[in-house]
């Protein structure tokens, strides 16, 4: 199989095409959509946070788990970041960023511990921590809001700044993607995540450290959600207790849209990220395409259904192909079996 045809066959390719078509059509209708300086910047900037959450969700879903608490982790770290700037004015920005991300890691560790040590389904645990983390966030923030004026200028400009026309946030998201994609695709521990998602009972028999890996999956997810939280504070420069509400399902939707199977073991974080880009681009493009803003969610829903139907068709085709190539066991000429 040639490189090109492998590329064309990749599930991710379809998403890229969809994004491309969408941007092209929208830009024809309203040129500023992708060509104006702001248009281009927003094209990349708007999806950045969701891209990071999609990577987080992708890691966890590949291990056949799910992390519904990402949005609450994002909210809590975003608020904590803002609070640190207000309450500890002496702290250098990088330290605050690290502490914010670290808080995400900590919350991820809570999820990971409950899921892997308690051996309890992650849907249940992270649904619980979604409530709990969000509750803590609201209890802490109350009606308070950290405003743009209270955050250091250098920090908030980071949220919207561009380097050579590319927003910093987008660069961060792509860097996260590159690192995680490398780890998942090319290292032993990454491949073990796929194995665990594919069949966790087999992974135990195999001697893989399932609990530890799952724990680290959640740790990574928490860390990335924490990073997204810090960046949220930078981008919106204003944080209240409801930051990121509802993004957990968007992150799941992005992963699914990008071909990460909810049943674990397949898909890539690249796909999840592309899913995130497609999802945000759609909701930005719809008004321009003349679809009322209120209908966006409906279109989104229909689209996800389309994506999972497509996955099903692809999977069925592949299964047929595997079956017809089944003659594998055709007994090879009896070679000298042992050398």
């Amino acid at each position, binding site marked *: 199989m040639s490189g090109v045809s492998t590329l064309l066959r990749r599930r991710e390719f379809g998403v890229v095409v969809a994004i491309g078509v969408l941007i092209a059509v929208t830009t024809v209708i309203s040129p500023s959509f992708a060509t104006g300086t702001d248009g281009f910047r927003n094209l990349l900037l708007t999806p950045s946070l969701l891209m990071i959450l999609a990577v987080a969700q992708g890691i966890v879903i590949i291990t056949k788990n*799910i992390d*519904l608490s990402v949005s609450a982790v994002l909210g809590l770290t975003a608020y904590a970041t803002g609070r640190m700037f207000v309450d500890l004015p002496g702290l250098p920005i990088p330290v605050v960023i690290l502490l914010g991300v670290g808080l995400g890691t900590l919350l991820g560790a809570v999820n990971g511990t*409950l899921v892997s040590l*308690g*051996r*309890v*389904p992650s*849907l*249940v*645990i992270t*649904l*619980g*921590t*979604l*409530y*709990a*983390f*969000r*509750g*803590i*966030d*609201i*209890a802490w923030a109350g009606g308070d809001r950290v405003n743009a004026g209270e955050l250091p200028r250098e920090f908030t400009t980071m949220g919207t700044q561009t380097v050579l026309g590319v927003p910093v946030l987008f660069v961060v998201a792509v860097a996260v993607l590159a690192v995680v994609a490398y780890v998942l695709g090319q290292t032993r521990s990454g491949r073990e995540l796929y194995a665990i998602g594919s069949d966790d009972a087999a992974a135990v028999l195999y001697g893989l450290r399932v609990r530890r890996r799952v724990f680290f999956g959640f740790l990574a997810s928490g860390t990335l959600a924490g990073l997204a939280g810090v960046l949220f504070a930078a981008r919106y420069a204003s944080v209240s*207790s409801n930051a990121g509400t*509802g993004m957990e*399902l968007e992150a*799941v*939707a992005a992963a*699914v849209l990008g071909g990460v*199977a*909810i*049943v674990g073991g397949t898909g890539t974080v690249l796909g999840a990220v592309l899913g995130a880009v497609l999802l945000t681009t759609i909701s930005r493009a719809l008004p321009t395409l003349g679809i*009322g803003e*209120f*209908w*966006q*969610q*409906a*279109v*989104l*829903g*229909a689209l*996800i*259904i389309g994506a*999972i*139907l497509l996955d*099903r068709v692809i999977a069925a085709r592949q299964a047929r192909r595997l079956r017809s190539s089944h003659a594998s066991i055709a007994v090879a000429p009896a070679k000298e079996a042992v050398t």
Partner: protein
Amino acid sequence: MTTTLDPVRQTPKPRPAAQRWRSLLLGRDAAVIGLVALVWIAGSVFVDNFGKPNTVYFLLLDALPILLIAMPMTMVIISAEIDLSVASMLGLSSVVVGVLFQGGWPIWAAVAVALAVGLVGGALNGFLVATVGLPSLAVTVATLALFRGIAVGLLGTKAVTGFPDEHKDLVSDRLFGPGTAIPGILLVFVVLAIGFGVLLHFTPFGRATYAAGMSARTSRFSGVNVPAVKFWLFVATGFVSALAGVYWTLRYDSARGDNAAGFELAVVAAVLVGGVSIFGGRGAIPGVIAGALLIGELRAVLRLADVSADAINIATGVLLIVSVIVPRLVTGLHGRWRRARRSGLESTSSSD
């Protein structure tokens, strides 16, 4: 070594009824029911105004949508699927009632159409999950967006209000006259609970639901029509969600696209607290009713104690986590304790 532990070479009998009762009384359901009572007592003792007829009345009204949707949701989860689109269907049904009512339709006709929409939406979920065979988590996340999107699309963020009093009274009237605790609308739930309880625990369809949840493959090999079972469960869930949407509309006199947004997680939480396994194949209706009541009760107690909404959320989350972790710990400790006891016995006997 005790002989009772030996594998017995004799024909097995059904477990005696007494033993079955014992395991039922020591079971998960009983624990949740006990907890409901415990919170009740604690609330009555420590919280002013708790335990009055009005508290019960409002508690039941508030818990009703969860109680309603939890019934079919229990069966869906036992069949090893999940439906996250229930709250969106609730919102959609509410909007349908509102839009048609606003358009001059008689309310009963609007309600009928809303319930039909529930059936259709449920059938869409059911078709995609059962017939096409897509994972329900993904499908219902999609229809969550779809139903909610249609609801919001139809009505924007406007609201339709001003439903006629005689219809609103249907949901708010008290069964035994003014000042008493039980809302008449609870009868709808009682009927539904009995219906789903019997369906799940005493009918071939219920057996098929458990079987489908434990192993779809074995079920198919045993002549269980797994897709049909799941399809109808999703249809039922859509229908009951729409019913809850009608209730919501009349109770709050407000048809809005964002009614009950995020509510699906509360329903799932209630079902899981009620002892249903997210992996399917395990769980029962009484436990789920207790689970939903427990959450509703806890919220009422905390609210009356002037604890803010955030703490209530934390409590719900912790309750959910505790409800799955504690049984694990208990079985784990129980096993360890038994092993310890056994090896203790052995060492004494061997020292003899």
